[in-house]
């Protein structure tokens, strides 16, 4: 995607993630969170925060970040419990869009733009 689309995606992600109040209701049902022995960055809440702090520059696209994000199974159990449902926060899809954003820097054969 070009720079304008990339910026628009980042803005959308930030706007959507702002709906998350870090209530952490979603963490227990996440299969990756359970399988990692309850490490919070392997939970939907964790992934949303990681995405946010990646976009605002605090974090970078390193191994732990990629591991966190791509360990999401897209199973959707988090969306069932999300307290921000009233604002149509689609947790699993946001994480997927995060993968879309990262694919810029991960897929070869393209001019990769650092997030």
């Amino acid at each position, binding site marked *: 995607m070009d720079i304008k689309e990339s910026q628009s995606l980042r803005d959308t992600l930030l706007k959507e993630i*702002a*709906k998350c*109040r*870090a*209530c*952490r*209701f979603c*963490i*227990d049902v996440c299969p990756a969170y359970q399988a990692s*022995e*309850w*490490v*919070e*960055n392997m939970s939907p*809440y*964790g992934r949303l*925060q*990681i995405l946010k*702090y990646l976009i*605002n520059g*605090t*974090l*970078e696209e*390193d*191994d*732990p*970040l990629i591991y*966190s994000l791509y360990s999401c199974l897209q199973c959707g159990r988090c969306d069932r*419990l999300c*307290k*921000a*449902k*009233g*604002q*149509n926060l689609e947790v699993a899809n946001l994480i997927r869009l995060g993968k879309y954003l990262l694919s810029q820097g991960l897929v070869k054969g393209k001019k990769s733009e650092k997030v």
Partner: protein
Amino acid sequence: MDINMSKLTKDLGKIVGKEHVFTDKPTAVVYAKDTMPWDVEEKNIPYAVVRPSNSQEISKILKYANEKLIPVHIHGSGTSLVGLARPKTKGIVLDTARMKKINVYPERGYFEVEPGLHLVQVKKELAKYNALLPLFPGSELVATIGGTVAVNTSAHGVDAALGKPGDFVLGFEVVLPTGEIIYTGTESTRRAAGIDPTKFFVGSEGLLGVLTLLRIRLLPLPYFKQIVAYYNKTEDIIDTVMEMYKQGIHPPLFYEFLDERAAKIGFEAVGLEEPIGAVAMMRVHSWSKVGSEDKAQNFLKFLQVGNPIEAKIVEDIDEWNLIWSSRAEAGNYMYRLGMTFGSEISPRVDKLREAFHEAQLIVKNLKSYNNAEFISFGHIGAPTIHAYAFIPTKDISNDLKKALTLEMREKTEDLNIKYGGCGGEWGLTAQRVSFLKKKYGESLYELLVRMKKALDPNDILNRGNLQGWI
């Protein structure tokens, strides 16, 4: 502080195993973030997150921290509503999530549980033994038992009906800030009298030690009867609560309300018909079935004192679940339209009406923001007024979020002090320190500082919370 990261990683790895030490930034940020709406800053982000599995490991971690003078912040669920969870200064985050064992001993009359188990899972285990978990936070899906007892909150439960979590704690295994492992209390169901140190650690907010094993008395599940009452205005509900205490009537275990605005939003959110005004929901409890029915009938008669439009016992479980869930949904749906900044006012009962009106004025006259809307809903029977300032937009700066949170907190604290209240269910340190000092005075605060220093001379555990750092 100059930290040699590779040495720190290695040293901590020797204690808990390298796979249970995390020094990468993504993990650190996730553990630093709490429920407060403003961003995590560099000073909040820990050097490492360490995940012990037993008290021996915690003891070694704390001894190491004291040796190197590195602060340690305890992490349960991270859901504190007064900022207890966010590390106030760079250090090590100690995550209790791996400590989840629970053993129920009906023949001994108690159960023992490690601090990292989420309340809803404790509840599930206890239900097998027909036992009640006497703690009721709205965050029970994720709140840990260690954290809830460390804050000693009954949250949604009305204290006067049952008591606080600490009333049911028989004893602890605690790791002191300097690393010693001590045992307090008793294994009998008759709690220790006298200067039992169990009491010092209940509600200690992570300042005086790390709770590593909690022994809690088994209580049987009571019988409940559900009542819903519709009113023209909130003041009628408030008058009812005041009258209830005045007449010496035993309160329902749960006594919730939605004000006119919240009731409309909440009922619409769950698909119920819009109520005329405010709504109150109660769960009357008794340890005998006949008792619960009798109590409910009597309470229904008593409710007439507040002139409800309608008050009835709800027998249909589905109908009740819908009505009850409108409380939670009111909050969730308000967030769709903007942001809310909350507060807790638990005044002296006979001052409830005045406190409520002043809370409304505070919200309408905020300095940080013009024309915020006042909304209130919550455990009015406790009594607690959760007064919310509702801002109809999400587009506000980090600084404004902080300013609004702190202004609401400070002004409602003054209200708590004016009307003799303690401030409610969220704890007394971190963002509550200014209140602590205002309400109880410098002498009491100094006493706490001395106690803290006596157990934690290097100020290792949860540094910054007693100081009131942000």
